[in-house]
Each structure stands twice: as structure tokens, then as C-alpha cells.
């Protein structure tokens, strides 16, 4: 129920921001449309509940921005200079998390980090398949993904019954 209310508030805010004019007409029409949308499209709650830790979240955002800039520069350099240093590979990485939200976030963020592109995510075994452009070693690529995953897990700690398992996994990691 709380998710539904949050979704309606967020959609109304986006609607009002698009009209750029905070009047009663805008807010009410936005709320009505948000309500109709959320009736048609189910807001599916994730199987595992998460909190957000602001400081770890900020660290994740900064890491992501830095990696994105590095990625674009590496690719730009490859395009400009003649000859090719491409060593393509498809690597499989076993994720340590059990929560689909964390796996999805890692898969999405990974598409924009240097040298890797997400191909498949196998949900039962939690295995991520990535395509690497410049392959130094399989271990190095796996390490990078696990680093990203650790940052995401730190930013969105699990709340609920999986917490003990997650804490164990984080200690092992």
C-alpha cells in the first residue's frame, strides 16, 4: 500500500514538473492520471525489501560517474587511434547476492562501465554474462563486477528475513 502511494506521489511530481507550473489544476489532474496509471499497471513489490543507506549510495553514484567517464574515454581512444587492441570475450560471473533488485541494478550499471556490456542474467543461478571488449584476464573482469556488486549491496542493505544470509555473504566477500 505504501508503495502505491509513493508511486502516485512520484508520478504526480513528474507530471507537475513537466508542466512547470504548480497550480491546483496541474496537481489534481496529475494525481488523477497517476491513479489511473497505477490501476492499470501493477506496482510489483520486490521479493526482498531494501533500505537505502545515503552515504553508501553517494559513494556508488560517484564511482559510477567516474567509471562512466573512464569508459567513454577508453572507447573514444580506441576509435580515434588506428589499429585495434580489441580482445573480445564473453565471461560468466557468479553474483553473490540473492536479491533480484541488486542483481538487476548491477546488470544495468554494468552496461555503462568501462569495457563491459551485460548480455544475460540467469535468475535461478544468479549468473551474469558480460561481453568484454579488452580482455586482460577473466579474473580481472570478475573482480570488477564483484566490486560493483559490493558497492550496490552496501548502498541497499537488505531488510527482513534474508538479512542474516546477506550479512554472511558480505563477510565472506
Amino acid at each position, binding site marked *: 500500500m505504501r508503495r502505491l502511494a509513493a508511486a502516485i506521489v512520484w508520478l504526480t511530481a*513528474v507530471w507537475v514538473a*513537466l508542466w512547470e507550473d504548480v497550480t491546483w489544476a496541474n496537481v489534481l489532474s496529475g494525481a488523477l492520471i497517476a491513479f489511473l496509471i497505477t490501476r492499470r499497471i501493477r506496482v510489483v513489490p520486490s521479493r526482498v525489501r531494501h533500505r537505502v543507506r545515503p552515504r553508501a549510495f553517494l559513494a556508488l553514484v560517484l564511482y559510477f560517474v567516474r567509471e562512466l567517464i573512464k569508459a567513454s574515454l577508453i572507447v573514444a581512444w580506441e576509435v580515434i587511434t588506428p589499429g585495434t587492441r580489441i580482445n573480445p*570475450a564473453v565471461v*560468466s560471473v557468479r553474483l553473490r547476492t540473492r536479491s533480484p533488485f541488486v542483481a538487476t541494478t548491477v546488470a544495468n550499471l554494468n552496461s*555503462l562501465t568501462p569495457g563491459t556490456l551485460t548480455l544475460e542474467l540467469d535468475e535461478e543461478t544468479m549468473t551474469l554474462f558480460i561481453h568484454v*571488449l579488452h580482455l586482460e584476464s577473466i579474473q580481472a573482469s570478475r573482480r570488477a563486477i564483484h566490486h560493483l556488486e559490493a558497492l550496490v549491496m552496501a548502498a541497499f542493505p537488505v531488510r527482513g528475513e534474508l538479512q542474516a544470509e546477506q550479512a554472511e555473504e558480505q563477510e565472506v566477500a
Partner: protein
Amino acid sequence: MIEAAASILILAGSGLALIAAFGLQRFRDVFARMHVATKPASLGMALTLSGAVIAMAGVGHTTKLILVILFQYLTAPISAHMIGRATFRAGTEMDPETNFDELASRIRPRPRQSA
């Protein structure tokens, strides 16, 4: 001063877009092209839109630009991933030098005769 900052950002973004377009022509493997078409394009778009936000700061209407940047960052990875997944599952020809992991070679579908 504001104009200088906005100009630099806009030029940098456009340069990245140009690099992305060149990369599309230059690389021979479809997945390499995917790398080069999505990453500089996203960063270039963020830079150009930020430059536009700075340039239009006095005029107003910056909320829409910020919304577009936000939306782009939410959806660019998803569309990149969807194209990659569709191409991989459809069995397109890949660069013959591609190394495959042991696990990966098991799930790879047999490539069809494609252009």
C-alpha cells in the same frame, strides 16, 4: 563566464557523439559496435544537456532538461542491455576471435547464417 562553461560542455558532448558515430562505422564486430554506440552517447548526452541547462539557467525551463537527463540515465543502460541480449540470443555472427568462458560456451545458441 556562463557562456564559456556551457560552450565547453556542449562541444564536448557533440565530440563524443561524433566519436560514437565513427565507431559505428569502424568496428567490425556487432558487439564492439554496441559498446561504442552506447557509452560515449550516454555521456555525451549528459554533457550536452548539462551545458544546455547552464546556458538556459537565466531563462528558466531547466526542470524539463533535468527530467530528460534523469530519464536518459534510467533508460540508456536498459536499452543497451536489451539490444545486447537480443543480438546474443538471436545468434548473430560474432567476431571469430572472441574467447568464451566455459560456462558461456554452453549457453551460446548456435549462430545462424546471417549477413
